[in-house]
């Protein structure tokens, strides 16, 4: 059993625990793609907040491949791409939100579907 000693602490603080995976997995989406978040209501862990379910957004960045928390919390890493998805504040909160404002979330392939044609 490895036990962390005082001399090991520096290494943990310096390097952390990088979770990004170097795996040849194809992204399902590209920058600029319009996406619709899934209406997920699982009893298990998820990193898709309630306020951002069944909302239309735009993929603005691909962060690469990471374990999927919704399954990784339950023993299955299911590696896949994570993206910055940008939503207008009005898409999320309705017309009381400022028309200028936006929200960005980091979401995984399995949180997203392609937006319906023309949306």
């Amino acid at each position: 059993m490895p036990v962390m000693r005082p001399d090991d602490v520096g290494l943990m603080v310096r390097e952390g625990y990088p979770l990004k995976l170097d795996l040849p997995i194809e992204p399902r989406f590209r920058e600029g793609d319009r996406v619709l978040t899934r209406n997920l209501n699982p009893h298990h862990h998820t990193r898709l907040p309630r306020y951002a379910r069944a909302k239309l957004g735009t993929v603005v960045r691909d962060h690469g491949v990471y374990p999927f928390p919704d399954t990784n919390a339950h023993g299955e890493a299911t590696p896949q791409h994570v993206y910055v998805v940008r939503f207008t504040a009005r898409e999320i909160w309705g017309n009381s939100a400022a028309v200028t404002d936006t929200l960005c979330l980091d979401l995984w392939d399995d949180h997203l579907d392609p937006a319906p044609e023309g949306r």
Partner: protein
Amino acid sequence: MSAHPRAHADDDEQGRPANHGHHHAPPEDILVRVRALEALLVEKGLVDPAAMDVLIDAYEHRIGPHIGASVVARAWTDPDFKARLLKDANLALEELDVSRLQSEDMIVLENTPEVHHVIVCTLCSCYPWGVLGLPPNWYKSPPYRSRVVREPRKVLQEFGCDVAPETEVRVWDSTAELRYMVLPERPAGTEGMTRHELAALVTRDSMLGVSKVAAPIEAATA
């Protein structure tokens, strides 16, 4: 809709609601529980308390917002570094020996007159430890997490941060393992200042996007 300001007047300083007639901050059983768990793990040979002391010292005395402030001051005075920081924050922060625990994958967002970025983690309390240290209680509290995504301008106003109506407020909810830091706007009147003097102006809150960096005169009289 605004909460009645007096409704929570006796919330404790960690932002949790007051619990009338059953106040437990911190509860006695927590003190004993923490001590029991540590003793149990030490007895089993799974934890070395000396390692705990080293870790505590690192986050209490060495790693904090002054690291982020020096990154900001460098970016303000070194355009090449700033370009590297915005393009690949991990690589740029490596140059400055920034620790990577809870900052494994960093993204730095530049505030401009066009876009004002604000950071939150609504689901837990993800925070860029390497550049800012451990988060303050308000950042971890449900009041901030619940409100800043929905009424960011109102929350910013409460923090004393005025954002022009034509500026886009862009809220970043840290839902993955990416950690975000804001590169605040450099205030006017700082042209002749050294990197060291500039770093002293940069606050933790400005690197979360809930405030701006005050010009030196404002900072001196604040």
